[in-house]
């Protein structure tokens, strides 16, 4: 069992997300940085979907009452186990009674803490992903984030060999990312000036960003057409409200929306965007859907992600 001493600004249970309920308005949830999340599970030989804790900006502390193996990926935080300094992006052993502590993120936003075998949390509608807005998932099933003294169970597992993520696979969250845009939705209805601005100008991530959407500030994108009738909104959709400042819809997005959309972010790049701190600059570039799809397929295959099993019989119940 692991007991939370200090949850920091926000810590919440996430598995890969809740699939098959979009037609009822229930959103997906899941880690906003899938890349870091999947690496943490892979380091521990876990199923891709094993539940972890998504910690926002660090400042987290917890105590273990049994031996286990853990991994921490995502945002750069100083990691200590009692007084011993640990490296991120590798697995490590924890002994009963030890305390794991995270400092504040110096780069990146979301930290992922995984335990071998995954945290054992009762799923709600097929998933334990915490979606606070939908009051669903998490330790108590009601969407609430973790708080001090919350206790999370896990199955004790055999220790395994040490593994770490090679440097070439580790993202540098301080660098200005170049994020792929797959043109789609109302792309053709946007004037050329808007399409070009989005892919040639710098945008800044604002502090109003959250798990629902990353809000950008920069050159306003014009859209002359009339308003839309509400339609489906994908994770990664680039929504342009009346003020022209784009919002990238994230995992807790609303399932339908009436704002025009320029397209959708390459899912492979989305995690990198999610790790941008407020004030950080981002650049976008057009990418062909076919290329993005190949990348996504390789990404899922590498981490052994199987989505069909997730949706099961939920489809349009």
């Amino acid at each position, binding site marked *: 069992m692991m007991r939370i001493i200090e949850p920091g600004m926000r810590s919440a249970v996430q598995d890969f997300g809740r699939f098959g309920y979009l037609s009822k*308005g229930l959103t997906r949830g899941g880690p906003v940085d899938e890349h870091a999340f999947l690496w943490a599970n892979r380091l521990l030989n876990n199923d891709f979907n094993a539940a972890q804790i998504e910690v926002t900006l660090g400042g987290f502390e917890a105590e273990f009452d049994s031996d286990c193996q853990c991994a921490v990926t995502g945002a750069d935080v100083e990691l200590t186990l009692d007084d011993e300094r640990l490296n991120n992006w590798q697995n490590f052993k924890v002994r009963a009674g030890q305390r794991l502590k995270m400092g504040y993120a110096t780069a990146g936003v979301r930290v992922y803490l995984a335990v071998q075998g995954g945290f054992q949390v009762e799923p709600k509608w097929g998933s334990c992903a915490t979606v606070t807005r939908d009051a669903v998932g998490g330790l108590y099933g009601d969407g609430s984030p973790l708080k001090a003294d919350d206790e999370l169970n896990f199955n004790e597992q055999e220790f395994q060999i040490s593994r770490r993520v090679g440097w070439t696979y580790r993202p540098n969250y301080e660098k200005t990312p170049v994020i792929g845009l797959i043109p789609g939705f109302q792309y053709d209805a946007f004037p050329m000036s808007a399409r070009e601005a989005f892919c040639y100008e710098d945008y800044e991530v604002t502090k109003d960003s959250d798990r629902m959407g990353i809000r950008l500030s920069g050159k306003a994108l014009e859209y002359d057409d009339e308003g839309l009738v509400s339609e489906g909104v994908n994770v990664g959709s680039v929504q342009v409200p009346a003020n022209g400042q784009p919002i990238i819809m994230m995992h807790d997005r609303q399932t339908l929306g009436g704002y025009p959309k320029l397209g959708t972010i390459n899912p492979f790049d989305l995690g990198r965007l999610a790790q941008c701190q407020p004030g950080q600059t981002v650049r976008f570039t057009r990418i062909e859907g076919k290329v993005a799809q190949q990348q996504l397929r390789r990404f899922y295959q590498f981490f052994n992600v199987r989505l069909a099993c997730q949706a099961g019989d939920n489809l349009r119940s």
Partner: protein
Amino acid sequence: MSNSTNKGTDFPKLVSAGADAVIVYLGEGISVSVNQQVLAAAKAVEEQLSDVVLDLVPSYNSLMVYYDVLRTDEPEIRERLRKTLSDLTSDDQEQNGKHHRIPVYYDESVGPDLARIAETNNCSIDDVIKAHTEQIYRVYAMGFAPGFAYLGEVSEKIRTPRLDNPRKRITAGSVAIAESQTAVYPSSSPGGWNIIGRTSTQLYDPSSGTISPLNVGDEVEFYAVSKEQFIEEGGDTEALS
């Protein structure tokens, strides 16, 4: 012209919705016939593409199709969607949805915009209630929040634009109108629609396992109940903050 089908229209139109989704437009604007085509398309896609489809989101005039990139790719799913949609016949549009009756306590204590709607439309509060309960509404779309159903169409006698400043918190169960649409807020949330009453019917309750009994294509009818009936059914009389 581009995108024209052999029927000489631009619909159905398939557009990219990301690396794992395609959006199918069946027509323009809000109409029963287009929404029926959306539903017919959703049913056909669910039946014939179940091996690759992960989720479907029907809305007023469009259908989002989320698919498994490990089992198919965009060119293949586009081809299969085109085939499935071109096989649709008008018979496929004639299926009837379920009929739901939802009790509403129409009162200014829980419907703070009743008087203003009456004033805007030059009628009495009773006329507003009558106009809202006389109509049978269609569920055109579900989304925005869990269990939130977009219902249309509201009688022209009581159509009222959204509030200029959305309220910070609307109590769960609030019944609201905005222009030609009406809806029940399934859970407490911010919102800019005009509130005319409250229902005791739960449209989203994760603690009991209810997402929503409503589906796109269903019919909804509202009927007025007294304060006593509303409370007896478990209604929340707390005034809107």
